[in-house]
């Protein structure tokens, strides 16, 4: 007995020395794509990258993935589809990544997934909403972010329910903007709500003439909707506010992710109060410990609070890593299988991917995307403290301010 135990101990010691003396384990390579410079939405892209960097450090401190260090190659895709293709090719052929993840612009994502499909490398989307991305049903493509149809149908239903009769929709000229606008318009039409579209280019600064035109319509819109990502919304909000158009008692204003960043208070001041925002994140009341920990760490490291976009980015990394661990391998083909079977609890939700083929966009789409419509009720409010007006089970109020 003693002898065999002794051998066991010696064997263990020898083995551990051998592995220590062995060359450092080969890293697991992943590729992150997103906009870090113009004409892309670099403020959101930067937030996403920061969230991922935070996650990578945490993972490596805890021993890495499959016992190997995790290494991310960051690619700036600038909001340009050709950059997306080039980045994907680079990541796959030069950096030999096991998976690509990230991205904020749908048009770029569509270019990237073609390359991913060509090479059979998994691609997981963080904040890209165009239905087409998953509707193409490439086996390599997965998405954490909602599809336009997933969210905007519900938003449109809510709009109709709230009694809005004349909506004006300002949408950016991208897959996200146009796709979302179309979903909303179709749904509103069915419910008998009028919707006037206006398409904008993200590089514009002065929307005043167009806003004047919209607000001069008879009857005047009672909801000004922005399907515009990022901080371009700030100018629309400011100018609409200065014109006395929205947000106010007669006309409410609803937008998306860029309005969640704290810079909105600096740029828009009082005008940002009473803004309605589609927030893809769990409400604070539902935060799990992971979420609380993430928010704290992010604030500490980067001196600004994370928004839902940062949480999605952080979770995407978590999901990809979970996929690799599920597959017990970093080989791209295996990781695809791993992702199909993944069941991962992140800061925003517990993720798994559907394999339904109808509707088309449901394939490899995470369907239980948590989102709320929040409303800022006072100056300098953080998104997590804002009032929640939708969905009913999380709502903190049933009024939309200001009440007439």
């Amino acid at each position, binding site marked *: 007995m003693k002898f065999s135990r002794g051998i066991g101990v010696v064997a263990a010691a020898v083995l551990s020395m051998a592995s220590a003396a062995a060359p450092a384990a080969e890293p697991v390579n992943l590729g992150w794509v997103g906009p*870090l*410079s113009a*004409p892309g939405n670099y403020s959101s892209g930067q937030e996403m990258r920061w969230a991922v960097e935070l996650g990578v450090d945490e993972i490596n401190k805890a021993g890495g993935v499959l016992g190997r260090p995790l290494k991310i190659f960051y*690619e*700036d895709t600038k*909001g*340009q*589809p*050709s950059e997306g*293709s*080039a980045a994907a*090719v*680079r990541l796959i*052929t*030069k950096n030999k990544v096991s998976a690509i993840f990230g991205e904020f612009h749908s*048009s770029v994502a*569509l*270019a990237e997934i*073609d390359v991913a499909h*060509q*090479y059979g490398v998994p691609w997981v989307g963080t904040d890209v909403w165009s239905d087409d991305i998953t509707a193409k049903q490439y086996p390599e493509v997965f998405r954490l972010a909602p599809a336009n149809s997933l969210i905007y149908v519900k938003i449109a239903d809510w709009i109709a329910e709230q009694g809005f009769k004349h909506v004006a929709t300002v949408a*950016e*000229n*991208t*897959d996200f903007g*146009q796709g979302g606008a179309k979903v909303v318009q179709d749904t509103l039409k069915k419910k008998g709500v009028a919707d006037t579209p206006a*398409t904008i*280019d993200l590089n514009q600064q002065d929307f005043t003439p167009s806003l004047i035109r919209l607000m001069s319509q008879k009857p005047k819109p009672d909801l000004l909707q922005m399907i515009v990502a990022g901080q371009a919304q700030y100018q629309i909000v400011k100018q609409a506010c200065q014109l006395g158009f929205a947000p106010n008692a007669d006309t409410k204003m609803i937008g998306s992710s860029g309005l969640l960043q704290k810079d909105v208070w600096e740029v828009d001041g009082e005008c940002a109060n009473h803004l309605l925002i589609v927030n893809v994140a769990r409400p604070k009341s539902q935060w799990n410990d992971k979420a609380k920990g993430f928010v704290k760490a992010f604030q500490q490291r980067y001196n600004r609070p994370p928004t839902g976009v940062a949480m999605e980015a952080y979770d995407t990394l978590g999901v990809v890593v979970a996929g690799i661990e599920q597959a017990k391998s970093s080989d791209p083909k295996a990781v695809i299988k791993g992702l199909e079977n993944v069941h991962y609890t992140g800061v925003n939700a517990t993720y798994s991917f559907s394999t339904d083929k109808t509707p088309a966009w449901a394939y490899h789409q995470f369907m239980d995307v948590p989102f709320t419509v929040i409303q800022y009720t006072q100056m300098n409010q953080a998104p997590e403290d804002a009032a929640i007006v939708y969905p009913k089970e999380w709502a903190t109020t049933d009024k939309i301010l200001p009440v007439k």
Partner: protein
Amino acid sequence: MANGYTQRPSASAILQVILLVVALAVPLFGGAYWIHVGAILWYYAILASSWTLLAGFAGQFSFAHLMFAALGGYASALIVLHMGTAYFPLAIFIGLVLAIVVGALIGFMVLRLSGPYLALFTLAISEVFRMILIAEEQVTRGSLGLQVPRFFKGDSDVPYYYLGLALLIGSMLLMGFLLHTRVGLFLRAIREDEGATQASGVNTTHYKILVFVVTSGIAAIAGIYYAHFIGILTPNMMILPEMGIVIAMAVIGGIESLPGAVVGAAIVYLLSELLRDYGELRFVLLGLALVLVQRFARNGLLPLIDRIGRRPAAVSSRLSAPGGTSEKPHGN
């Protein structure tokens, strides 16, 4: 690239031959990544060299160069999308013809303009075209991006690499030939002093329009190549910063040297690839390089190499000639 003016090959000519051999060999040793990079490089090289002909040799500082690439690319892409890939030759032909016609038109419109006025005019036209591409989404898919059928089936970039290289060599030969004839002589003369040239009986209108026609056609070819290689087109291919990169390539390599532009394209593009990890600093360096090269090596780096390769006596006699360091026309 023998030129008949100097007795033995210049340092830059030797460099060009070496680079050509390397270029031909890359697909054999390079790996998928470098082949892809090379295939994109040819696109920029064709644009930079044709722009050099337009701006460097003929003095037409045009900001509309990428408009022709986009015009050719979108025209060809739309035709193939609507009529099928069997119509590739027709699509290419129409893209080319369209660009040439527009090029002639623009050449005509800018006849009385030069310097910054020509630059601003071509910039304005280019921007209007870009806005049309964005606004007419029903046709072009605007900022959403137009998915374009590729030339070759299969995943490999090797056929594109060689196609791009062949197009580059072809356009260089065409332009080089042109420069060797009277056309080249007249273009340079027009650039130096149009009034005098006109007084000497040269039909300057004819040649100014000709150079626009030739260079816009070549730019369109580059655009068509790009469209059916990358497989996706957006109006962002012709934003001002992209034009800036083409200008930078021409300037850094040698604004009065066709092979110089190609070398410039290689330097700028490959450096920007190698410096990817440095994010935005890449472009800071590019801007800095542009300023420094113009400030200290006005005619670009390739002629600088030439100068270093020549005998000192020849160099000093050249420097003391009036007009600074302009070199004798030697068809390069």
